[in-house]
């Protein structure tokens, strides 16, 4: 297993030369692999990629996202999904196959300004992203606080196998729904927990490139640090 090498890069920086596989946010020029974004470069298993620190959300099939209704036609809703594209949710997806534009009123189910948790069903460069709400935990969001963070920092908020988000949820007893597009809904019975959770999410957004972020968030939330830390102290 190769060790992961990390570096801070800006567009145009040569990350490495040689037989590596270019992945996200890099391109190959001759045998040089060059970054296209401001971010952190990673070389892992002969693959090179850059984790960007800035930029908009690009829809990917199967992403869970949070969208805001901006309008509808007689057959579909249109969503602001914090991207350069507009998300479409067909009416059949909500009303079922026997949907008829003359009988059913779209406004009764989802109106302008409503927040919806949805999944990207299909997206390619020739069409705008198609959304679906036919899955567990998807659909209209009835209550909660909307927070916007940079979409490039969402993976950091989730953490390795969900470690970061679990930490925050456990410490604040809040329910957090993370959209890959950088929109997050937090809801909680306890107003203090809600504020704490929002503060923690903002902290991750601001300090996403720092090492030991989970530890920092834990100490901010007043959680006991993990067992492995105690052994280090001894």
């Amino acid at each position, binding site marked *: 297993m190769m060790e992961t090498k990390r570096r*801070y890069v*800006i*567009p*145009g*920086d*040569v990350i490495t030369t040689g037989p590596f596989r270019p992945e996200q*946010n890099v*391109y190959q*020029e001759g045998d040089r692999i*060059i970054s*296209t*974004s*401001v971010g952190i470069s990673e070389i892992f298993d002969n693959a090179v990629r850059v984790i*960007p*620190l*800035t*930029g*908009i959300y*690009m829809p990917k099939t199967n992403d869970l996202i949070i969208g805001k209704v901006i309008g509808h036609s007689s057959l579909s809703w249109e969503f602001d999904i914090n991207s*350069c*594209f*507009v998300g479409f949710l067909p009416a059949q997806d909500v009303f079922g196959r026997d949907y008829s534009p003359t009988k059913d009123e779209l406004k009764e189910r989802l109106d302008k300004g409503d927040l919806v948790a949805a999944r990207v069903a299909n997206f390619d*460069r*020739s069409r705008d992203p198609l959304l679906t709400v036919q899955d567990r935990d998807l659909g209209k969001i009835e209550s909660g606080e909307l927070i916007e963070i940079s979409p*490039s920092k969402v993976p950091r908020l989730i953490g390795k196998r969900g470690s970061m988000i679990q930490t925050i949820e456990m410490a604040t007893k809040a329910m957090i729904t993370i959209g890959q597009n950088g929109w997050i809904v937090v809801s909680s019975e306890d107003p203090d927990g809600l504020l704490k959770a929002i503060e923690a999410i903002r902290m991750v957004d601001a*300090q996403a*490139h*720092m090492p030991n972020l989970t530890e920092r968030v834990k100490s901010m939330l007043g959680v006991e640090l993990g067992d492995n830390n105690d052994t280090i102290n001894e």
Partner: protein
Amino acid sequence: MTQLMNENGIRCDGRRVDQLRNISIKVGVLKNADGSAYIEFGKNKILAGVFGPRDVHPKHMANQDSGILRCRYHMSPFSVTERKNPAPSRREIEISKVIKEALLPAVILKDFPRTVVDVFIEVLQADGGTRCAALDAASIALADAGIPMRDLVSACAAGKVADQIVLDINNEEDQEGQADMPIAYMPNLEKITLMQLDGILSPSEYKKCVQTGINGCKLVYEMQRKALMDKYFTNET
């Protein structure tokens, strides 16, 4: 006519022939833009804001295969000694066009079909070489907005003053000098994206002028790099 260079080879503003003016760059100065930068290039003060990728209006400009780049260079009425009419002049339209064409080889827009990236450049104070300084700011603002780029674009002028090839022409040298050559350059790819020449140079002078300009761009690149690093990676321990 003012004396542009004294017998010791020192120029009218006290610089050596191969010396740039003082440059300071700040990234992310505008909250409402997706990316922004502010540059002070000697007495030039220029603000650049980038929006996008976003929906194209008017719709007929949209390209189904790729995103498009739009650029607007504008001088404020108070940027020069005599009030400038704020309506876009022939010169501003031309500079908008050359800046757009200088940035186009650097940006990668094929992943954003039917969208536009807008670059707005506002010259707050002008003192010669604004198109180069504007390009420097625009290129960092694009990087700040997270637009994928093959390389940063660094720009700097060279020229001929008092029969000598000099780096970074200022306003006086531009008015009274013999030649002015703005150059934009992608330092890592070693490619020129903009080159204009106003004046007459012999072939050997031309070669030296291009080389001087490229060296200047490399110096500018270091400043751009530092500005970006400062914004994104400073509170690193």
